[in-house]
């Protein structure tokens, strides 16, 4: 099949690559702002209720979260290697690495779901209709758990989108012969994936390692 024809607004394929990379970084900047507002709310409530945040954090399973951090860091490695494999036209290797990325992303979600379920059993989920009991933790505990579930939930949503995107990329790698186009798109998917990883890198110490 023929390689991409260059759209009229670009003078060269390299310029096109720069433009799409720039656009992806702009998208990530807006994502950073959305998560940043949540991080700021977290900071204010942590300054207001330092002891409660430490007590509430101790209710969460930090070892499971550490394991999950390792899972996501590994998935960042596999997708970075996959992008290189695509560029080098190593199709089978790229597919295996992308499949590993999806598997690691799903493992993260399963472990996270298990953590949420455990927290539900311990009456820590602040949802209408659920039995919720923060009496042992002091005032401000509800805010900690609101922020915890909103922020980890937003992160899990972003990760789910990332998994869906990587699955589409696998289809491109498997069935498209337009290497330049596939390399460009897999590269953008990688940027998004790494960004979601970075968000978790900050969520992990802020929610699980408060003392």
């Amino acid at each position, binding site marked *: 099949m023929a390689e991409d024809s260059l759209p009229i607004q670009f003078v060269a394929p390299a310029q096109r690559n*720069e433009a799409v*990379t*720039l656009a992806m*970084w*702009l998208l*990530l*900047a*807006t*994502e*950073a*702002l959305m998560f*940043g*507002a949540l991080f*700021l709310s977290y*900071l*204010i409530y942590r*300054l207001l209720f330092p002891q409660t945040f430490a007590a509430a954090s101790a209710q969460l399973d*930090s*070892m499971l979260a*550490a394991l999950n*951090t*390792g899972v996501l*860091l*590994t998935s*960042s*490695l596999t997708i*970075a*290697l996959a992008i*290189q494999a695509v560029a080098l036209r190593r199709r089978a290797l790229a597919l295996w690495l992308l499949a590993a990325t999806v598997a690691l992303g799903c493992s993260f979600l399963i472990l996270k779901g298990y953590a949420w379920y455990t927290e539900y059993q311990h009456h820590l989920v602040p949802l209408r209709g659920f039995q919720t009991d923060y009496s042992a933790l002091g005032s401000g505990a509800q805010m900690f758990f609101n922020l915890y579930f909103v922020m980890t939930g937003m992160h899990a949503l972003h990760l789910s989108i990332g998994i869906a995107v990587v699955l589409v990329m696998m289809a491109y790698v498997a069935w498209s012969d337009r290497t330049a186009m596939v390399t460009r798109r897999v590269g953008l998917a*990688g*940027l998004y994936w*790494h*960004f979601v*990883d*970075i968000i978790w*890198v*900050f969520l*992990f*110490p*802020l929610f699980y*390692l*408060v*003392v």
Partner: protein
Amino acid sequence: MNARRYIGTYLALILLLTATVWSHGFELGGWNVVINLAIAAAKAALIALVFMQLLREKALTRIFSLLGLSWLAILFVLVLADYLTR
């Protein structure tokens, strides 16, 4: 070779993760959170610079990568200027 750089970066990330978890075992008062955030920032920098290729991108892309952080810095400074001086 890119693959070797990526694997080296990955090992550094796992080392940093181990350091965070290990430091959690010590009662260092306010230093715990400083260590945690410093390590998180180091991890984020490694991911952005190596995995996200910022080291090899054009200056304009690097500036864009700092845009979100700059706006956030404004938000944090102005809001904290209120909360911390009440």
